[in-house]
């Protein structure tokens, strides 16, 4: 019995492979399992290749898994297009469409000998039972139920809900196709049975959603009443959620004419006193650069979501990457600090989004949430979240006394100045992107400029102590360490678990606050570290470089970085950890310092 199974399936657009994945995930969730699903498509809008990965587990999941346990190929051409996204290994069971006429010992997976390879006449079975090839995905669900024991009941229940409107005939046809799959599986048992342990999870109250919907819901929970943005993959669903729900809370949403107007209207709403948000992906973030600077110098709260995809430029719109960190931290002329938060999964997207609004309000600043294509579009089952645990922060308003002789940009001890908004009697002021005096009037004085820069940057000092925005795993004294942020952190966390099971003394640091760099947190974390890795999905190793700017990393800490759409797998990381340990032992044996 296994704790965990990873399915990967691919076919052409019309094959309904994604909808099969969704049925499987729903069924697993209904049976009390934890589940996670990612989708991946070719560039075509319709009819191109499409794939999904569904991971099902008896325990909380941190990432969509590495090598597949089960691969389903409705045709090989499309399957192969996903390359490293659907990795088959020696322990994978490969199920494929027999009509592809490929011999089981000739499947086009160079250099890999899967655990078992099973051709199945899927379309034939679909036609025979349901009268249409379109039921292929249902046959696949039957095969999975039969071989791996997931969803026997729940898939059918799901069909009943989903197909209710389509009438009894359709439902019956699908049931027949599903049973045909089960029958085939039962008739051809696996060489090595692969069933998953019974779930111990609660069946009711579980949530299921993806990162984009979670982000939007968290924003509304935080009191966000205004969203404006421009559609861009893979962030558009955030705006879509708002267009459905925000009106209910007295809010409004504007689909702007471009990203500049998108952030512009959000800045306007913030100036008018409302919590507001914009969301985009790489190209849009680049376009918002000038306006982000305006929000910083005008000291206006604002949350900006960047759902990272492959860059630069239009790049790889449907693939995840972590290469927008430089842009998030440093885009824009002049001296600016902009806090950046990053979720590592769908579940913590809630917490991170609420925190982003809190920081924006507290520090009167734009705050960036760096999500990525994977988190934003992957579906996860999650345990219920007790929202009453979350504190909601509002910007500090001027007191009666402040309004006597109101200075909007008063240089206070904290660097934060009480902020008024239109409609507030006595609070009128001039907001501007021009350097200004405490009262808001424009200045060309170098001294004032210096004082104002100092104020605007000093105000972030308290972030240095926000240890609650970091998560650590493992033994605090470990000499081996990993640091990772965003979606890859979930992969690393699994690698740490494996490595620790294999006896390595390794620990891990996950920053939710990615920038500014909380120097003390890293200094403490690295105190015991002699060898380590900063793991990320960006060719330049952007996070590693950003850390170096502020922290003297121990000499043995390396960058492990690769472009997006080629996710690191836990096993790869574990291999490197072993290498590092060996080096460390060698150097200790020879009493050498780590080499530069």
């Amino acid at each position, binding site marked *: 019995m296994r704790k965990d199974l990873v399915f990967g399936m691919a076919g052409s657009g019309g094959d309904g492979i994604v909808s099969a994945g969704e049925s499987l995930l729903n069924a697993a969730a209904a049976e009390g399992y934890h589940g996670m699903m990612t989708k991946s498509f070719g560039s075509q809008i319709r009819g191109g290749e499409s794939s999904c990965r569904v991971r099902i587990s008896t325990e909380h999941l941190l990432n969509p898994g590495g090598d597949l346990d089960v691969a389903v190929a409705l045709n090989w051409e499309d399957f192969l297009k996903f390359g490293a996204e659907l990795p088959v290994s020696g322990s994978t069971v490969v199920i494929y469409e027999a009509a592809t006429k490929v011999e089981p010992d000739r499947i086009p997976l160079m250099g890999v000998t899967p655990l078992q390879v099973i051709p199945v006449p899927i379309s034939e079975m679909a036609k025979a039972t349901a009268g249409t090839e379109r039921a292929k995905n249902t046959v696949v669900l039957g095969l999975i139920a039969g071989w791996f024991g997931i969803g026997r009941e729940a898939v059918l229940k799901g069909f009943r809900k989903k197909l209710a409107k389509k009438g009894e005939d359709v439902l019956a046809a699908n049931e027949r196709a599903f049973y045909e799959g089960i029958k085939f599986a039962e008739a051809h048992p696996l060489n090595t049975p692969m069933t998953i342990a019974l779930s111990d999870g609660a069946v009711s109250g579980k949530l299921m959603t993806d990162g984009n919907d979670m982000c939007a819901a968290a924003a509304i929970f935080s009191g966000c009443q205004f969203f404006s943005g421009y559609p861009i993959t893979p962030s558009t669903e955030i705006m879509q959620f708002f267009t459905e729900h925000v*009106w209910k809370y007295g809010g409004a949403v504007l689909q702007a004419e471009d990203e500049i107007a998108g952030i512009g209207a959000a800045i*306007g709403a913030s100036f008018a006193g409302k919590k507001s948000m914009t969301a985009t992906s790489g190209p849009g973030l680049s376009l918002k650069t000038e306006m982000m600077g305006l929000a910083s110098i005008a000291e206006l709260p604002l949350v900006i979501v960047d759902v990272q995809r492959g860059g630069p430029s239009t790049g790889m719109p449907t693939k995840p990457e972590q290469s927008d960190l430089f842009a998030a931290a440093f885009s824009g002329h002049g001296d600016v600090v902009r806090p950046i938060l990053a979720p590592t999964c769908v579940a913590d997207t809630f917490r991170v989004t609420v925190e982003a609004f809190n920081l924006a309000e507290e520090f009167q600043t734009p705050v960036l949430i760096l999500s990525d294509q994977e988190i934003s579009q992957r579906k996860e089952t999650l345990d219920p979240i007790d929202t009453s645990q979350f504190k909601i922060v509002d910007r500090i308003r001027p007191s009666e006394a402040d309004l006597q002789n109101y200075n909007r940009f008063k240089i206070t001890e904290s660097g934060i100045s009480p902020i008024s908004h*239109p*409609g507030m009697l*006595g609070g*009128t002021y001039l907001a501007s*992107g021009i350097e200004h005096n405490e009262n808001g009037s424009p200045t060309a004085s170098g001294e004032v400029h210096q004082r104002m820069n100092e104020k605007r940057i000093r105000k972030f000092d308290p972030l240095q102590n926000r240890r609650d925005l970091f998560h650590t795993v493992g033994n605090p004294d470990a000499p081996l360490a990993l640091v990772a942020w965003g979606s890859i952190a979930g992969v690393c966390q699994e690698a740490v678990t494996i490595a620790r099971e294999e006896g390595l003394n390794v620990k891990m640091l996950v920053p939710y606050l990615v920038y500014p760099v909380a120097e003390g947190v890293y200094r403490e974390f690295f105190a015991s570290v002699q060898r380590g890795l900063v793991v990320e999905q960006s060719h330049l190793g952007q996070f590693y470089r950003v850390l170096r700017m502020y922290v003297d990393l121990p000499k043995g800490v390396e960058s492990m970085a690769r472009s997006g759409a080629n996710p690191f797998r836990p096993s790869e990381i574990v291999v490197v950890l072993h290498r590092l340990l060996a080096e460390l032992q060698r150097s200790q044996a020879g009493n050498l310092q780590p080499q530069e």
Partner: protein
Amino acid sequence: MSETATPAMPFLPKDYKSDLKPIWCPGCGDFSVVQAIYRALASIGRAPHETAFISGIGCSSRIPGYTTAYGFNTVHGRSLPIAQGIKLANPDLLVLAAGGDGDGFSIGGGHVPHLVRRNMDITYIVMDNQIYGLTKGQLSPTSPKGRISCTSKYGSLEEPVNPLQYVLGYGANFVAQGSPADLAGMTAIIEEAIRFPGFAFVNLQSPCVTYGEECQQIKGLKAIMEPLASIGHDPSDRMKAMEIAQYYGQKLHTGVLYRNPNPPPTYESMVKQRQEELSKGAMPKEQILDLFIKR
């Protein structure tokens, strides 16, 4: 602007004047524009703190700082998106946007049609001096073809933008033109634009005394001025307005070119209606995650 929010207490033009001393060149047309705005606001009577005045960057865009309204001197060309966010966040505010010809029709030109078609109740005033004042005399989008400037040493090769024709083409419901060459008329136009329930556009030919050409100064403008009232223009005739707009640059037609006698509902009024309908019986935001519960 919702009429109900107007207080009974009267305001004087000086109540809208801030302590900040304008740094415009002596004689700049924008001095008259800000005077006209003080007067128009006073006769409308909304309190300064209930007014938001948004601009971009340029000599003209300094104008919000010279008023006692909540001002926002944003970045070059972006007054309109920001003004829209303000209006949607708080529809009760009186929202004014203003800036130069470059700000509005060069870098900011992409935003104009979208505000027009959204028809929010925002008044947009362009101080059209047909030059880049703040950056010291480059070609502006409304500079006439052939104009020599520091970026067109041998004369401009482009047809100018026609702000009136553009905005009419976008389907605006209120389009007017004025000039410091007629202060009283300009004041009346601005007031009418603000009172208009929906988006209103006002083009003001405001001379740049430092970089403008002779013919663009007050005297020159007076020479080509033709008040629309004097030629019996019917401001409800959109096609006629389009025809008149073609004379932009040759004549200075002052007054209201087009005013839709049946103004359509504003965007924010539709938003309000939607908010009212949908908020009924909505789950409290603390429970919004219930949307994701798998049942």
